[in-house]
């Protein structure tokens, strides 16, 4: 046997459950999962890796769309898997599609922001797609498969 320098793969999954805290905050009062939400943004907006928190600036508006978006269904806990002695992946995918029902969104949008409404609306991730408009219809955003290579959120070591 030999020792191999690596970040523990389990750590990657545990980052997603706030098991480790290298800083002074936040103090977590509950052991249950936080509530995450998904908000849609106009194609003209600027939402990217520098986005730190949910904002109404650039968010879509329209009939039956509530500012802040929809609550994400989160029935599957994060998972971590070793891909080799030195590499691993922690990953998570919402367990249901994001559905915006009977909305009219007349201005083109191409982006969804996933954010943590329990933790002061802090941003989690930004996902883009082809520009859309919706007229008295339903917009459905179906998640990728929850695997090491396709999950919506993946933290990987190399």
């Amino acid at each position, binding site marked *: 046997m030999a020792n191999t320098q690596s970040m523990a793969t389990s750590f990657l999954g545990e980052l997603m459950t706030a098991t480790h805290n290298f800083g002074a905050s936040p103090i977590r009062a509950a052991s249950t999962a936080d509530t995450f939400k998904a908000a849609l943004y106009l194609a003209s907006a600027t939402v990217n890796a520098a986005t730190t928190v949910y904002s109404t600036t650039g968010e879509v508006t329209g009939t039956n769309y509530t500012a802040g978006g929809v609550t994400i269904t989160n029935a599957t806990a994060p998972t971590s898997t070793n891909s080799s002695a030195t590499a691993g992946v922690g990953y998570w995918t919402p367990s249901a599609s994001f559905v915006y029902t009977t909305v009219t969104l007349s201005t083109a949008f191409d982006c969804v922001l996933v954010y943590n409404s329990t933790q002061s609306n802090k941003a989690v991730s930004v*996902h883009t*797609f*082809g520009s*859309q408009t919706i007229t008295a*219809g339903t*917009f*459905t*955003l179906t998640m990728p498969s929850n695997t090491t290579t396709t999950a919506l959120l993946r933290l*990987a*070591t190399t």
Partner: protein
Amino acid sequence: MDDSLLEKREGTVDNENELTTWVEYWLGEELVHRSAHVTLKKMPNFAGGDTASF
């Protein structure tokens, strides 16, 4: 509304990032319904972490 007056239009976009299908119903020159279904296929890694060497 007489549904027979509606014209249905459909489309698909399929690339490495998404599979999108959409359907529209037109009443003459007026778009009266448009729905879209986007399936995200694959997201990029959000980090490439490693440990320090000594």
